[in-house]
């Protein structure tokens, strides 16, 4: 092509960070999806609640006040203070506990997704790129992992090790790598044959460099979609574990733990079980909406 040299240099200067420009395009396309934006807004609110809990919560989430137990939503207590969502069986403010409950949920969510995401990315890259024996071994490991009823394995392991935040994060993180690995592997299988990868090889790049600099950035978008949607799953699992008494232990408020308390009072105090469940539902729904939007924008053919 006979493009004048000056024009070509200009072009290169403008394209200094093509990656960033691409992300701006994605962000604009994502912003046109109203449901995805709604999901993002919900997620942001939950994150703000978790970070700002000490300032946002109207009352102490742990302090008990037996004289004001089981006040229905909106009722004033003996001291004339109002409780929007009522109080629980120990007289604790339900709204305050729900705001604080966002903390363990998001902490487990982010940390477990980080662990399983990194593991899965590593396995997927190696498995897809090198293929052969290594691929066989990893894919059989994936089959074994998937054969377990997830929640049963998690509670068995946590039962032995004892429930604590690090144990919960590691157990969920280590046992959730398969989806990431499969999606990344699939992307790598097709990337491996592309011209730019062959060009990198021809220029003398070693496998490690090709993987990290050329293949990984291109396998990142499907990975990101999986990570977002998996976050929703992890938050449900965290609250399920808390519900069974195998999550973060009291007195730390957790949504699942509050639900378990509320279940006992189901016939007399409906609000105890209703509101914490709504908190989980809204958070998970927000993440799912955002994740669906992300998938439709970044990688519409990805089947999840």
């Amino acid at each position, binding site marked *: 092509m006979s493009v004048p040299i000056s024009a070509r240099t200009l072009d290169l200067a403008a394209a200094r960070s093509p990656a960033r420009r691409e992300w701006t395009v994605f962000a604009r396309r994502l912003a046109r999806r109203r449901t995805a934006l709604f999901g993002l807004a919900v997620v942001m609110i939950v994150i703000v609640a978790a970070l700002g809990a000490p300032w946002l919560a109207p009352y102490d989430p742990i302090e008990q006040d037996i004289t004001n137990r089981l006040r229905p939503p909106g009722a004033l207590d003996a001291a004339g203070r109002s409780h929007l969502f009522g109080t629980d069986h120990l007289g604790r403010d339900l709204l305050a506990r729900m705001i604080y409950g966002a903390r363990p949920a998001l902490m487990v969510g982010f940390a477990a997704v980080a662990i399983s995401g990194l593991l899965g990315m590593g396995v997927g890259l190696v498995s897809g790129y090198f293929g052969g024996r290594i691929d066989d071994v990893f894919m059989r490991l994936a089959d074994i992992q998937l054969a377990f*009823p997830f929640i049963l394995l998690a509670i068995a392991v946590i039962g032995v090790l004892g429930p604590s935040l690090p144990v919960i994060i590691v157990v969920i993180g280590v046992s959730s790598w398969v989806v990431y690995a499969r999606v990344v592997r699939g992307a790598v299988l097709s990337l491996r044959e592309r011209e730019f990868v062959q060009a990198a090889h021809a220029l003398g790049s070693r496998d490690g460099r090709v993987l990290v600099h050329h293949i990984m950035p291109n396998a990142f978008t499907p990975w990101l979609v999986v990570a977002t949607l998996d976050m929703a799953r992890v938050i449900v699992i965290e609250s399920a574990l808390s519900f069974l008494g195998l999550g973060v232990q009291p007195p730390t408020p957790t949504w699942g733990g509050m639900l378990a308390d509320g279940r006992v009072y189901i016939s007399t105090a409906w609000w105890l079980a209703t509101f914490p469940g709504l908190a989980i539902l809204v958070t998970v729904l927000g993440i799912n909406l955002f994740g669906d939007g992300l998938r439709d924008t970044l990688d519409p053919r990805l089947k999840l």
Partner: protein
Amino acid sequence: MKIFLARRLAQSLLVLLGVSFIVFFILYLTGDPALVLLPPDSSAEDVEKFRQAMGFNDPFIVQYGRFFVGALHGNFGQSVRHGEPAFGLVVERMPATFQLAGAALLVALCLAIPAGIVSAVRRNTILDYVSTVVALLGQSMPTFWLGIMLILVFSVQFNLLPSSGRGSFEHLILPAITLGLFTTARITRLTRSGMLEVLSQDYIRTARAKGVSDSPVVWKHALKNAAIPIVTIVGIELGTLLGGSVITETIFAWPGVGRLSVQAIYNRDYPVVQAAVFLLSSTFVLVNLAVDVVYTYLDPRIRLQ
């Protein structure tokens, strides 16, 4: 065909071997299985005696071999709490869990496939929006919350259905809906996207062009071709259902394997936990093997892979 089946069978056996190793390993997570199995206040002498008696001083691989041979014979040791063989306790409760999982799957298929088809055929109509929103809510709703809300409405408020136990058909309704909702949502979305893809294919346009009316196109031409991913997901969802039974059975006091294993974990009754995890995982592996065999008939291309 034979080669494909033989390879799938070998893979399944390999997976079961891996499963048995992890189940065995659960007891060794703390390093000392004697400490896991004995009450926390046992004396050092008791622990040592127990270790000798159970053979925990043997090399690791010998212990695993013993566990594996035992597992093949259905021997997972005695339940610490019930004093009966752990295997028998779990097997006794399998029918209840299968009944619940089967009912949940039935609920899911009966709701999801029509909903998914209607959604795809009447795309962007009010029906589609309603079904999409309901599916999205279903996928985001925690099982245990749904179960409690159903109890709140149908048992506490209106006193229509029993909230716990197993026996009559009425007992099955709430747990089956609770357990089946997530799967319903998944299959609805999958059916919708599968049907949309198939309906835009050339052979559908051909069928319409030659004058085939609407309903045979949908039911005969399209659904048959959209069925393969649905059959696959049914196998995978069975794992979700068996695992989800842990929570649903706990909420509704359903006397199945899930509830048994949660109680066993609270009671530190690990032989029962091991037997339950092993048997549920084996069931899942066998069902998926069966699913693979079924869809080699549905889609001959798979045999060649």
